[in-house]
């Protein structure tokens, strides 16, 4: 079956994408994956390189690179404000990708672009995928593209190393979770709260069960994110999953120039890597 498709496309179909391989490597070494989120262009376009290299140097598993948008409905105040600052700096998908092309040789850590759908549509899906491959982007997270609508992008990634990461939420019923798990590439992004990105003090009791269930169903890594903002949460929630994604706390620390706060968030195993 695979062979048939490959002949048809004349290219190799990517079933296991490099992003997944990188995360699994971490897990196999008995460690937790740690993916920080940064807002591209917050602090200026030149800050992108600095922030990526800093995090790479700290041994993070991958980096999620947020693209600023005028209407970020899935984001809380911290990332909204970072996005507004980045917009004021003139950041957009095009200049960010061009900026990254300048220093792609320096990057070894997998990069994941997180963008709302409309900037990608405006860029042109095929052109965007080609540019991602050129720059060496490992994954895409599109928060307003549920699995039902994802064909428009997925169909362009069949032979590409770029993974389309799917989100699963606490509200997703079992049959949806199964459907999403089937479609997922790279890793499954388990949204840990009903809500938007941001800082949380508490997580629902059902989270443990939810993540356990997800790991049962999925045969790719499950990473938890949204609202994780303290070293204690990184440890506690990391223990229930294959790793964590930390957004607002990282964005805030970079904005405040507080690099030691970022180091404190990294799970100890990562630092020892």
């Amino acid at each position, binding site marked *: 079956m695979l062979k048939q498709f490959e002949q048809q496309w004349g290219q190799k179909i990517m079933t296991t994408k490099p992003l997944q391989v990188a995360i699994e490597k971490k897990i196999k070494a008995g460690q937790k994956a740690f993916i920080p989120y940064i807002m591209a262009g917050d602090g200026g376009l030149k800050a992108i390189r600095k922030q990526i290299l800093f995090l790479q140097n700290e041994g993070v598993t991958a980096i999620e690179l947020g693209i600023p948008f005028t209407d970020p409905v899935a984001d809380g105040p911290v990332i909204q404000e970072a996005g507004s600052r980045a917009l004021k700096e003139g950041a957009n998908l095009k200049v960010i990708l061009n900026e990254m092309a300048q220093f792609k040789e320096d990057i070894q850590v997998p990069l994941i672009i997180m963008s709302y759908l409309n900037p990608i549509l405006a860029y042109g899906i095929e052109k965007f995928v080609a540019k991602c491959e050129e720059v060496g982007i490992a994954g895409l997270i599109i928060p307003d593209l549920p699995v*039902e609508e994802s064909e428009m992008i997925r169909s362009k990634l069949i032979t590409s190393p770029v993974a389309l990461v799917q989100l699963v*939420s606490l509200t997703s019923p079992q049959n949806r979770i199964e459907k999403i798990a089937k479609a997922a590439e790279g890793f499954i992004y388990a949204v840990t709260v009903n809500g938007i990105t941001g800082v949380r003090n508490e997580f629902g009791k059902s989270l443990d069960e939810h993540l356990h269930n997800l790991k049962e169903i999925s045969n790719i890594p499950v990473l938890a994110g949204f609202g994780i903002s303290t070293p204690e949460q990184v440890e506690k929630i990391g223990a229930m999953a294959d790793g964590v994604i930390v957004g607002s706390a990282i964005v805030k620390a970079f904005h405040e120039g507080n690099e030691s706060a970022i180091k404190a968030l990294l799970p100890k195993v990562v630092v020892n890597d």
Partner: protein
Amino acid sequence: MVKELSEQKAGRYGKFGGQFVPETLMTALNELETAYDEATKDPSFHEELQYYLKDYVGRENPLYYAERLTKKIGGAKIYLKREDLNHTGAHKINNALGQALLALRMGKKKIVAETGAGQHGVATATVCALFDLECVIFMGKEDVRRQALNVFRMELLGATVVSVDQGGGTLKDAVNEALRYWVTNVEDTHYILGSALGPHPFPRIVRDFQRVIGDETRKQILEKEGRLPNAIVACVGGGSNAIGMFHPFVNDESVKLYGVEAAGSGIQTGLHAAAFAELKEGVLHGAYMYLLQDDNGFIQEAHSISAGLDYPGVGPEHCYLHDIGRVKYSSVTDDEALEGLKLLSRTEGIIPALESAHAIYRAAEIAKEMKPDEILVICLSGRGDKDVETVRAAMGAENHDN
């Protein structure tokens, strides 16, 4: 024939529509769709809705022959569909009522909504008071300023009004915040979206609850004139009054349909709210539609003197009706809308909402080119009480010159 094409695949109108929302909302949308499908099959739901539409909203409202306006224009016979006479003063209550009954069926006791002009917010706060539902309304800070009276009305009705500072502080920003609130409180909260916008099934639900406008108009014009109108004109913000008016006539090819968007300071100035003037496709608030945006896919602020038309997109079914050529869309500037408002006020003693005034201005132009034995219907979507301050400020200098 057109009707069958209208929603070929659930939630799709041609290439428009869809469900472009965070995963956390997908389950709520699926639940809503199921609950709505069940409700439409349940006669007791219709009975209840009919009861409140009649005894609470005051339907059916008149289809009024505007004789002096007709004489003044000197063309087609002009009728006004009087949505302005509804309880709370606009068509918005039709949808708010229907969706509140739906929320009750789903066992949700909390409501969130966005509002631009404040009309949808007032309508939502009203039905929440009526059914004892907790109510949070998001409103852009610019709209809070220009619709201060409606803010107070909502608060009187027991709603919490939250001013939204992000972006330009208008309707689109209020929708963003309402969506964020809904994502966070989805388990016990229903989002009463106020226009024929957003992810499926909202465009369909809102249209169905608003089609009472067109259904009544059809019946009334047949009673009065024994035939269908030659033309119908409605203003288009997100498109709910227009789609509700148009929908029952879409298959009557003899009835020309006109949608009127806000041209703000003029299309060429870039300060407008006319998505059909630019025809750029994109995704915002869960739907694929025509949308004001720049080359980077960043959404542009809409501009209009009327808060209710101040939205950068237009509902997916309208996008489809545009593409198949069934409805003609055009736009009217702030100044022209003020003309329309004065025209109706002075010929008929009816002060229209600024939104509706856009339809009046364009309708007057269209009627003028029509024959006296032809009929034109205007959807008078709301009354102008809420706009008197804005109009006074806009007319400023010319206040005393006539």
